[in-house]
């Protein structure tokens, strides 16, 4: 019994860390632009696919990840420049539909480029799996959780202690006010897309050795990241992180204690309950802007 609980926690935290990073990307784009960016999962997929491609070409791990992140980030910037910026005056619904369309196109192009095979690579530095109190921690788990932790700390420092970070926050709080003090909201929107793409690419890169990647990995991950963000309430970063972890742990507990066949039904049922109970999510302000 004890070892089972530990196993569910380890599994939940490692999956939840991926959901949390994915959710944070949603949060950043949403705060600045009020757009739910459905290309999220495709960027996680791209980050993973590029990493595994470069790695299997013989490029060492760290440069392979860096290259993957840079390229994926550039695609994120291009998505904003080519699609979102020209359409910025459209209604949020139109913009959201645009991101859905872009996600489908990205998946199609990726399928042409990489084919349909599922890909994987060894755990980073061939880290061995560990036995903890009778439970198993896969070799990649410390890398996933560690990376998530570092990114959260890095984001905190960025938002609290850099001018760019503060400018982003001001756009999120009050776009009109930000414009009045001379901050280009459009430029901040671009930064948010870049930043989100980078976060997603890193999530994709650390995820591959543990759960593999294929060109179809994007949409399911987008849904999980979105759920994480909604559970936490889209408006606050700590809420999103907690939401991601809660989702991961809830999945593991539901699969372990109740019924693995009902896992998704149980987790989605919980989500509905949470949103009915607190319309803004666990810690958030989602839905509090409009009353109806």
């Amino acid at each position, binding site marked *: 019994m004890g070892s089972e609980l530990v196993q569910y926690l380890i599994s939940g935290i490692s999956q939840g860390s991926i959901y949390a990073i994915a959710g944070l990307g949603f949060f950043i784009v949403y705060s600045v632009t009020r757009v739910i960016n459905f290309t999220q999962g495709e960027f996680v997929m791209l980050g993973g696919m590029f990493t595994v491609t470069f790695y299997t070409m013989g490029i060492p791990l760290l440069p392979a990840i860096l290259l993957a992140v840079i390229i994926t980030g550039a695609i994120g910037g291009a998505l904003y420049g080519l699609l979102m910026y020209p359409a910025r005056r459209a209604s949020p619904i139109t913009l959201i539909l645009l991101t859905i369309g872009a996600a489908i196109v990205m998946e199609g192009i990726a399928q042409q480029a990489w084919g349909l095979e599922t890909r994987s690579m060894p755990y980073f530095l061939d880290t061995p799996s560990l036995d903890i109190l009778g439970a198993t921690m896969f070799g990649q788990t410390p890398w996933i959780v560690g990376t998530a932790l570092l990114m959260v700390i890095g984001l905190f420092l960025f938002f609290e202690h850099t001018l760019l970070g503060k400018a982003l926050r001001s756009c999120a709080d009050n776009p009109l006010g930000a414009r009045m003090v001379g901050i280009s909201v459009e430029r901040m929107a671009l930064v948010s897309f870049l930043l989100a793409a980078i976060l997603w690419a890193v999530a994709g890169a650390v995820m591959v050795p543990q759960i593999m990647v294929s060109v179809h990995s994007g949409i399911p991950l987008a849904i999980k990241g979105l759920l994480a963000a909604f559970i936490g309430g889209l408006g606050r970063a700590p809420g999103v992180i907690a939401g991601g972890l809660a989702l991961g742990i809830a999945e593991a507990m539901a*699969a372990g204690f109740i019924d693995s066949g009902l896992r998704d039904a149980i987790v989605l049922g919980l989500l509905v309950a949470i949103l009915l109970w607190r319309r803004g999510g666990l810690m958030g302000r989602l839905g509090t802007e409009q009353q109806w």
Partner: protein
Amino acid sequence: MLIGLILMVLPLSTALACGGGGEEAASYRIGAVISQTGPYASLGSPQLEGIELMVDEINDAGGIDGHPLKLVVYDDQSDEMQAVLAVRKLIDVDRVHIVLGGVAAGPAMAIAPVVDEAGVPTLLLAGTKILDQPLRHWVFRPAGSELDFIIPILNYWRSLEPPVTKIAVIKDATAFGNGVTAFLEQIATQYGMEVVVDESISPIPGDVSPQLMAVKNSEAEALYVASATPAGGLAIKQAGEMGITIPIGGPHPLGTPDIVAAVGEAYEIPNLVLVDVELSVWQQLPETDPDKAAYQQFDGLFRARYNKAPSMWHGFEAQHILFIQQALERAKPDPAARDRLAEARAAIRDAFETTENFDGLLATYTMSPTDHFGAYLGKNVLIRFEDGEKVIFQTLD
């Protein structure tokens, strides 16, 4: 994915059109509903390669009685509803003689009642016996089944000392996974076994350590991975890392090249034994094997066109086209008579049903009015993985 249905019409070998009718009408029209996008695309894409190879081979050799085969392919996007829409279009618009489709159990289940009601002879591709019930007048399935990929594993487990009596199942949360598990639970008692753990995994690969923990902490003496997706391969990898050393078995798809490539060395554990088709390890078969020459011929044909080794899926679909060929050769319907389509379809259906000892690449099939599956055990072997290679562990006869 939403871009829509992809229409592919292969070039016809024209000169051979049979007297009277136009060139269009003189070909046998085969409609295929294949998953080319979505989660089942890893099954559908190679299957389509196998279909195209065989159709072109037959056409290059002059068609069937001088009539070329015309292939119309739609993508069902791994989605039941799209499969039904596609099959309706094949029946009503393309007016095909034969439907071929449903690479996975879900889409296959969805199209079966539609073709049956419309009266179009149909071959289902998915490999689970749940599709054989109820028996449908127009639907045939010269494919694989649980008989192929469960019974050899159970026989092996029973031969161990001490014999396995309690088994755990980890299954894809799909129609395939459910069908296989239901069959396993039903047949296990005949082998003195019972299923003590039954866990589901998402067909999208993920961390399945909670499910494996349930297996590890149970009294199960063997684990069957009822999966046709990379998620099952990943589950086996994680089982190895979690120190699960009880015998592990699984069906053919877990040994197909892309899943093997993704799982890599983690498959090379001594307790893993998979069922595979003889075709995929034909080089290792003894010279006395009656099918070795046929495998070698297909292998050569396939490599000449695609420059890679054929996988099970390729052989599987090539077999369906050969099955259609033998039926058309016997039925000899006149494809030029546009107003007698229903008659032609009925003749082909009857030829499907009277197929006797069709010697396919994966099994030998004999159909009857009460059996539209037609095989007992296919041409299979048990394999293990050693030094990056599939190695025959046990031949089955």
